[in-house]
């Protein structure tokens, strides 16, 4: 267990795939390395990057650097597996003791609560309790802070589109343009990207159909509003 935790931390420092851990409820699984993980996560939240391992070693003298590690996902799965087995053994053992002491009903209740807790900790599913006010407040505060920092949805400047998407194009959204070939969907997408750019955003266009220079010509055409022609 101990060694697997060290491997997970080492793996994430190496391949920087921190999102794998962030969406996996890992906070509840780590026993010995939770302080190091908290440091890595805080560092990531402040600086948007994973800290170099030298920094972690400097901070945590007992942290053991393992060079020979695989992908974060692999070690995470190993850790979840071990955690699952260990925890299940504990749960079953205490249930068995209760049954022996003639407390069947209690054993059943404990089994149900503990196993569902276990399921939550070992799967990459996020849970939310609607009754949990603190969580709701934290979420709305986060939204407010985002808004104050200018992080609102992107407007396209086309009233037709913006009316149907009142909050704009927001983070976490997956939007789709669907059309037959040659209709102008790439054009419209580039137009949206230019509008976002004009609002101070940083667009990233993955073009698998046209070369990057062709796309740039089109972007220039849209930015120049007719000053440049792409043909």
């Amino acid at each position: 267990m101990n060694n697997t935790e060290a491997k997970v931390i080492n793996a994430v420092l190496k391949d920087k795939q921190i999102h794998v851990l962030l969406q996996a409820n890992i906070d509840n699984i780590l026993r010995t390395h939770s302080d190091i993980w908290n440091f890595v996560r805080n560092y990531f939240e402040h600086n948007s990057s994973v800290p170099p391992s030298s920094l972690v070693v400097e901070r945590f003298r007992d942290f053991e650097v393992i060079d020979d590690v695989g992908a974060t996902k692999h070690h995470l799965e190993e850790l979840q597996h071990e955690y699952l087995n260990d925890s299940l053994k504990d749960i079953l053992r205490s249930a068995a003791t209760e049954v022996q002491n003639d407390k069947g009903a209690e054993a059943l209740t404990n089994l149900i609560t503990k196993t569902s807790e276990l399921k939550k900790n070992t799967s990459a599913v996020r849970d939310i309790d609607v009754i949990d006010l603190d969580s709701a407040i934290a979420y709305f505060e986060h939204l407010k802070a985002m808004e104050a920092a200018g992080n609102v949805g992107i407007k396209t400047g086309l009233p037709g589109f913006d009316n149907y998407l009142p909050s704009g194009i927001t983070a976490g959204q997956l939007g789709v343009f669907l059309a037959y070939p040659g209709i102008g969907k790439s054009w419209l997408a580039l137009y949206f990207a230019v509008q976002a750019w004009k609002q101070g955003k940083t667009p990233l266009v993955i073009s698998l159909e046209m070369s990057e220079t062709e796309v740039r010509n089109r972007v220039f055409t849209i930015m120049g509003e007719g000053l440049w022609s792409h043909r």
Partner: protein
Amino acid sequence: METLKEWHKRHLAGKNPFHIISNDQGGEISPSVLRGKIDQYKPDFVIVDYLQLMTPNQKSDNETVRMKNLSRELKLMAISEEVPIIAISSATPDDVNDLSSVPTLGQTAWSRQIAYDADWVMALGRATNSDIIECAFRKNRNGFMGEFLVQVDFDKGYYRYKDYEDKQL
């Protein structure tokens, strides 16, 4: 050239970067590559043009399976990287002679999975040689379904909203 320099100085210099990535050299772009690029450039807006040309992380000969993996990965990426992603998808017409109608969700090429994963789907249609694009929301988790028209000039690169035909379904 001089005009370009002048124009660049006036309109582009000092603004946010605008990154374009292509695989013209024959490289494959998979969701993992895209995630790496997002980590590198930290964009606020990502466009994938287009979905059917992207390589999924888990390879498969079956186009439906590929599409399923791809759209799932894109949705998860949008959430975990906290960035909006617009994916362009081609559609397969029921009748190859009719390319001017607005496609429906069922005509998404290869798989309809993207329609389940997407927050909104906007279908576009344009009659041959027309400068009016018909736009229709086929799915919208954040607002109403509806249609609107956009007038375009591809040479000048502008889009103008045509308001007189705005109709709500």
